[in-house]
């Protein structure tokens, strides 16, 4: 009887140790890493005065939630900070260049690049566009990807702090 108990204890603890080790790498990837975000925003100041617009509006890309957090406008570029929360387990990353941005007069701001950091829960990142050519009251973001054509229009109001 004691032997059976001992064997059960050993098996139990082996299971705990082995599976804890197996799960460890997955748990580590769940820790978000947003260290770069603040530095990216800070780096925009090199362009000149930065105007920040708080947006916080979402749209659904199929079942995956895409949120526009803020828009940063500098003399040289417009930068969109987003959060992406796909439904279910992780898959392909977002094709950032499929996002087209227009001002209220319909001028397209040219996509110039993007950066992102992710976890299995989703990702956060920046999409860079060319600078505004004229003041705008709203912006229209279009996800133009295969047969998907998903739009989000949001007002551009100066409630964010000027720097």
């Amino acid at each position, binding site marked *: 009887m004691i032997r059976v108990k001992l064997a059960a*204890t050993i098996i*139990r603890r082996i299971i*705990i140790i082995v599976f804890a080790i197996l799960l460890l790498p*997955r748990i580590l990837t769940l820790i978000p890493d947003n260290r770069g975000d603040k530095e990216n925003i800070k780096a925009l100041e090199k362009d000149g005065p930065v105007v920040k617009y708080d947006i916080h509006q979402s749209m659904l890309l199929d079942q995956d939630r895409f949120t526009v957090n803020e828009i940063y406008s500098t003399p040289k570029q417009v930068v969109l900070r987003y959060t992406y929360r796909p439904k279910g387990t992780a898959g392909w990353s977002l094709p950032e260049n499929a996002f087209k941005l227009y001002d209220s007069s319909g001028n397209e701001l040219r996509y110039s690049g993007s950066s992102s950091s992710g976890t299995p829960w989703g990702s956060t990142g920046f999409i860079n566009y060319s600078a505004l050519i004229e003041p705008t009251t709203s912006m229209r973001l279009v996800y133009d*990807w295969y047969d*998907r054509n998903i739009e989000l229009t949001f007002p551009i109001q100066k409630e964010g702090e000027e720097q």
Partner: protein
Amino acid sequence: MKRKTIVMTLEWALAVLLVFLFFSDGPFTIGSGSAAEAHERSERSYHYGPSQTIKEIQYRNDIVIFLSTYKNWFSADTSVKKGWRWFPGGGVGGVEIDKSKAVSYSWEISRYKKERWIAKFYGYVSDPRITSVVLNMDVINEGKQTDSKDDTQKMTVLKQSITEDRMFLFLWNEAEIRYTWKSLQGLDSEGNVLYEQTLN
């Protein structure tokens, strides 16, 4: 004795929980249970499709290619088995079918595991008169044993018949045999060349 029982129960609970987390679907899970599931998830997360699978091609026991069409696009999405789980292996995005051309094609070479470079050359035939496609190639080398093979065997062709599904796939392992692509031809049932595209 009572305390011992509590500790033992807690340890069992922890063991069961860890095993459950490892095998269950959730943020702790990686991969899919089947090749088809990995393919579906791949398309869903890519915001493409769901496509209609026309042919499923199994390569060895750990690669499955889904030749599919979706609206005006075709694709050759690949699921790869690593361990006992299936993962997306590239080729998910569709290529547009150019109706003005007899044949629309695409290709992709991806590395799976150490010594396998899987080359996919695939396409969609719009011209209904074409009954076979031929990929003309020169053999650069045949794997590692590249010694005195006679030079006359250098030119080679891969040929595939086209059925109602209108799709084709040439599949080979670049680590075993390497080619320079010469041309892609579409032939009718009498062997006349109706379409030719030089490659390279």
